[in-house]
């Protein structure tokens, strides 16, 4: 840690030397110029966000700085010295640590084993477990979470946020001078993001350079001081947070102004009859859940991680059905015992985790789009390339409807970008003629432009009389999209809020500080 304090001193003086600097970096992949002559300095004690649409080259740049990729040309300077990394480990040992978007922990191993994986304190190959746990505890203490997380806890017993903290502890444990985070907040809820922001402040105070990628502009503005925009692999501009507004950054990112973040809310005349009525629904993960959903409305579901949001979706969709209580679908009591039954009853579920629950990666786009129709269809029903017997041109029609950008529907789904994959998933549910959609984090980890188009699509669905239940941990999304807001807390419905309630109101209810207004739910919240 002595190094970081000495680094902080020259920073105070007028003459500033970047802690990490990339100059004229170019990286080409087969068919794509991922980075084109990008130069960027990163100062010590500064939080620097790198933003841009998917494919802008952010992740590639991070991977080059952390040694996972080798640039085709260009140089990297660390403390003014030219360096090159053949492997992430070399970058780590020089003080550059990276936290990737996907979780990078071994779920079956302890916190200490994870933090020191590959660097276990050992003599003659024998691990000194006591020392390793002690060192892990020190690292956890350094980031102030030693009371929350034990070094001997097995990772799969920790919450998502705690796991993220373990990842940061792991990164810090390399005596990192530069910490790179790729979408660190994607899986976190509002309060957990605050926790992360505090932590970043402390790291900054120690003279570290923190670099992070995020699609959530609100957080970029909360946490970062400088914001660099990349577009199509090219450097666009670096701005000081104080000088700009989010809309300006969006303009730089997409090259045009997005005149609205969210489509207008539903009108009175759009609202129809009650499609879904749940009363007293309970199972192991939910307690006495009651609510109604109308045709043509977006019912936003907010709540902290673990409050039962996703579990509610799974109960409705028959993944983990309610054990008690009644579910009325279009006026008829019904028990959906599995997803197949739910789909036959025209429910659709756009899941949170695209990779493990949404797409079938190695199959063509068209098979992904037709998956639901085929699942509920006759098993020996003859298939057509582009559709089912009713409509043999279903795939191109859907493709246009959700605006998938691809040269061929024969391409494997794994070759698409995140935004396009999400559109494929959406198309799958449009194909099954669902008229009640459940969206779980519909825009998680998706770039700004795709985000807007998915929001537009959700609103278009309601205009056609579809009922939408939208779960999100992004409060702006909840506020911007919902015609009513259901707030969950501790496996129950804490209450209901009208459209355009403030984020603060939602947070208060989600953290159990206020009860809902409706008498029905007030009991549950108490």
């Amino acid at each position: 840690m002595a190094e970081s304090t000495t680094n902080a001193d020259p920073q105070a003086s007028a003459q500033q030397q970047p802690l990490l600097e990339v100059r004229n970096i170019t990286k080409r992949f087969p068919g794509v110029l991922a980075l084109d002559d990008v130069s960027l300095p990163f100062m010590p004690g500064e939080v620097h966000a790198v933003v841009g649409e998917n494919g802008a080259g952010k992740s590639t740049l991070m991977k080059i700085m952390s040694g996972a990729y080798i640039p085709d040309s260009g140089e990297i300077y660390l403390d003014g010295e030219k360096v090159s990394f053949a492997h992430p480990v070399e970058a780590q040992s020089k003080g550059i640590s990276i936290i990737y978007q996907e979780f990078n922990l071994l779920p079956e191993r302890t916190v200490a084993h994870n933090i020191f994986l590959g660097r276990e304190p050992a003599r003659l190959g024998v691990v000194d477990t006591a020392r390793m746990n002690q060192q892990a505890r020190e690292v956890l203490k350094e980031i102030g979470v030693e009371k929350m997380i034990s070094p001997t806890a097995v990772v799969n017993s920790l919450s998502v946020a705690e796991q993220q903290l373990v990842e940061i502890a792991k990164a810090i444990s390399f005596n990192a001078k530069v910490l790179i985070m790729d979408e660190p907040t994607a899986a976190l809820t509002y309060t957990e993001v605050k926790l992360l922001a505090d932590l970043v402040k402390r790291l900054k105070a120690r003279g570290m350079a923190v670099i992070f990628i995020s699609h959530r502009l609100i957080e970029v503005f909360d946490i970062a001081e400088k914001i660099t925009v990349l577009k199509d692999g090219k450097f666009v501009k670096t701005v000081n947070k104080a000088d700009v507004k989010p809309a300006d950054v969006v303009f730089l990112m997409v090259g045009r102004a997005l005149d609205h973040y969210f489509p207008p809310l539903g009108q009175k005349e759009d609202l129809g009859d009650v499609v879904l009525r749940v009363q007293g629904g309970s199972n192991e993960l939910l307690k006495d859940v009651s609510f109604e959903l109308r045709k043509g409305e977006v019912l936003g579901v907010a709540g902290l991680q673990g409050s039962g949001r996703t579990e509610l979706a799974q109960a409705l969709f028959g993944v983990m059905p309610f054990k008690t209580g009644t579910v009325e679908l279009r006026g008829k009591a019904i028990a959906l015992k599995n997803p197949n039954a739910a789909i036959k009853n025209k429910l659709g579920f756009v899941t949170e985790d695209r990779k493990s629950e949404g797409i079938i990666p190695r199959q063509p786009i068209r098979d992904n789009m037709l998956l639901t129709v085929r699942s509920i269809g006759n098993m020996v029903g003859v298939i057509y390339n582009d559709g089912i017997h009713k409509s043999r041109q279903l795939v191109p029609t859907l493709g246009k409807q959700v605006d998938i950008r691809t040269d061929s529907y024969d391409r494997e789904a794994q070759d698409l970008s995140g935004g396009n994959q999400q559109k494929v998933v959406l198309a799958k549910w449009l194909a099954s003629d669902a008229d009640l959609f459940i969206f779980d984090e519909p825009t998680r980890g998706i770039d700004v432009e795709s985000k807007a188009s998915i929001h537009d699509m959700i609103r278009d669905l309601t205009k056609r009389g579809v009922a939408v239940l939208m779960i999100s941990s992004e409060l702006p999304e909840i506020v911007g999209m919902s015609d009513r807001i259901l707030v969950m807390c501790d496996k129950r419905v804490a209450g209901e809020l009208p459209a355009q309630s403030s984020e603060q109101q939602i947070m208060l209810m989600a953290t159990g500080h206020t009860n809902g207004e409706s008498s029905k739910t007030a009991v549950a919240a108490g």
Partner: protein
Amino acid sequence: MTTTTVSDNRFSRGLRGFRIPPVFVFLIIVFLVGGVLDQLFSDGQIFTNPAIMLNIIVRSVALGIVAVGQTLVILGASIDLSVAYTISITAVMSSYIMQGDPTKVPLALLGVFGIGAAIGLVNGLVITKLHVNSFIATLGTSLIIAGIINATFSNYTGSVPREFEYFGYGTIGPVPVSIIVLAVMFIGGWLLLSRTKFGSHLYGVGGNAEVSRLSGLRTDRVLIGAHVLCSLTAVLAGVFLVSQMRSGAPWVGPNGVYDLNSIAVTVIGGTALSGGKGGVWGTLAGVLIFGVLDTVFNQLGVNPYLKIVLQGAIVVLAVASYTFRSKEEPA
């Protein structure tokens, strides 16, 4: 609430390393049911005669030794189908080199362990460098070894010297040498997995190879190391078998179905085929279940073919006993 977990003491940590897998319950049930059946329908020696107990373990030695190696590769999310023929090549080569001459024992051992290391190295290299699925890679090497030994050796080649039979039949006090070797292998396997960097890295590679690579592990080396160790355990099992048989024959490995059986006992012991989860103690329970069954069937004089049927059913039931409540999707 967290204070208790933070303040871990040496004792609880020791226990964590030594967690008793649920399969031991299954082992005890099998043993008790077998013993009761033995009391009812046979001479009841399983409960009364300690020699039978010992015999259960002695019968399990060869499978047990190779199962330790198999556990290592399966923990690394790999598999080794070549252990059976590795056992065979060890058996024939060692007795061929020894030719009954005690002075040639060191040479023979050097030879077969060298061959074993080479087989493991080839397996590991083909899997990691040529990116061939481990199932196919080791099936391939298995065919290659089979071809070579079947072409070169006929039934029973050479012989081992009397002194060498000590490994198979000798005792230290009342305890057979073979059991001591087995115990050493399991304790060694446990220490390797729980106390060394290699073990920690192996869990890492099997649990998530990409994470391990990004953490700076040389994942290829770890997996190659596991394969070499696995082949070496197969060699040791082969050496043990030849010391009992007195002369090596090419069919000894495949006849004992050591490839599939070692995988079966490992999985019965709770080590996941997908890697990164499990350990050697479960495998020991799996091996002993096989040993107990074998002894019970012999005691009851079960038809040898019916024995195979029952063994098949029990393999599936043993694994089912803890998978049936699982929420994970089977493959």
